[in-house]
């Protein structure tokens, strides 16, 4: 599995996994691995939506005039 760094990459990979599984292109041994990867990707996406990234926050406050609390 390639390292997923952006939300867009994660979404694309998820769509790809779904398409492959739906097409029956995944054998039973790979299925569990795919399911685990998909779960990780979904968590990654949900973290982007719902979890504060302190790194982003710190970076932005260093380049803006003022950061809202």
């Amino acid at each position, binding site marked *: 599995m390639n390292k997923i760094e952006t*939300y*867009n990459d994660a*979404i694309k990979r*998820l*769509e790809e*996994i*779904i398409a492959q*599984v*739906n097409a*029956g292109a*995944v054998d*039973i041994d790979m*299925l569990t691995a*795919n*399911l685990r990867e*998909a779960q990780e990707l*979904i968590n990654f*996406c*949900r973290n*982007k*939506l*719902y*979890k*504060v*990234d302190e790194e*982003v*926050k710190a*970076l*932005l*406050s260093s*380049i*803006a*005039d*003022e*950061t*809202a609390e």
Partner: protein
Amino acid sequence: MNELEPLTLYSLNNIVRATINRDMPSRYWVTGELSEVRETASGHCYIELVQRDEATRELVAKARGTIWARTYSLLRPYFLEQTGERFSVGLKVLLQVTVDFHELYGFALDVCDIEPAYTIGDMARQKQQIIKRLTNEGVIDLNKELPFPELPQRIAVISSSTAAGYGDFCHQLKNNPYGFVFYPSLFASPMQGAKVEQGIIEALNRIAEHLEQWDVVVIIRGGGATSELSCFDTYDLANNCAQFPLPIITGIGHQRDDTVVDMVAHTRAKTPTAAAELLIHAMSAQAQYVDSLKNDIALAVSGSVDNMRRNIQTILHNLPMSVALYLQQQQHKLALWENTVNSASPRRILELGYTLTTCNGKVVRSSANIASGDVVVTHTAKGNFTSIVTDKKNDNE
């Protein structure tokens, strides 16, 4: 009066005053540009009206004017309500005036009425010219054509830090009911008056220094009462916004026609709160999509497992029949082999009447292998007998 006798200045001015009063008794409608507007504590308003040469922009006429407090207290709110603009420098106006001359203060216009429609028309004309120019230059839709980010979280807000609009915007984002994370950061700029254009352009430049750190730009201003918008109708500001490489959302807080900045922006919201709602909505759409992907993957996997289970069941179901068929085939083959073997067996040949002769337990294939006097055994299909060789003849003899 002796013509050589000099007049006092007062007398001369008095003649001018009398002449003007006699020859210009009416009220006149006059157009001009406000080059100075000064309100006094007592409520009067002193203005300077100018006319410029269309081509060179150089002044060709100028006059001072007065709007007395009792008139100005009516005209001021009327003008603001009609045009959305404060009665201020830079505006083209149509005024009804009487011409005054005072011995001490000189020539001045006494303003008694104003026609806001003229100012509105002039502003609309200027706006149209800006729009036409941006269209001709091919930039008017550039910002609209930018893709909107999937997650508009890192928000560069251009606003005045003291404006209520910025507070409303941040409050709305922070308290979104889904718990989405946003990172709104302020790039301060005046949002009212003559410094808006420069302030916003400078803020855009500061944002552009770290372009990849931002998802979207939001330009907001508190709504309040009817507010001046002409500062958002300038060519340079609109051009900068249109060509900015991040999508711009406006929430300038007004109910009137769009300003040129609204028109070139990626998305126009009516108020800061509406701009925040729009961003929350975009996030919500993504959240739903992630949920649907989660469903899809579950369905796909369970579908795939079902498929495999069905395949195994089919195999199990068909297995007994396959085995029976296989056995039958093998039995058939066996029977054929048996037949072949049987037909090749010496017993079968003996039954046909042939015999087999052995000497000392070895099969006699040629008379050369035996000699007279040898004891040989002859095997028939049923029983055998022993003989003594009395004579032999070889093939080559």
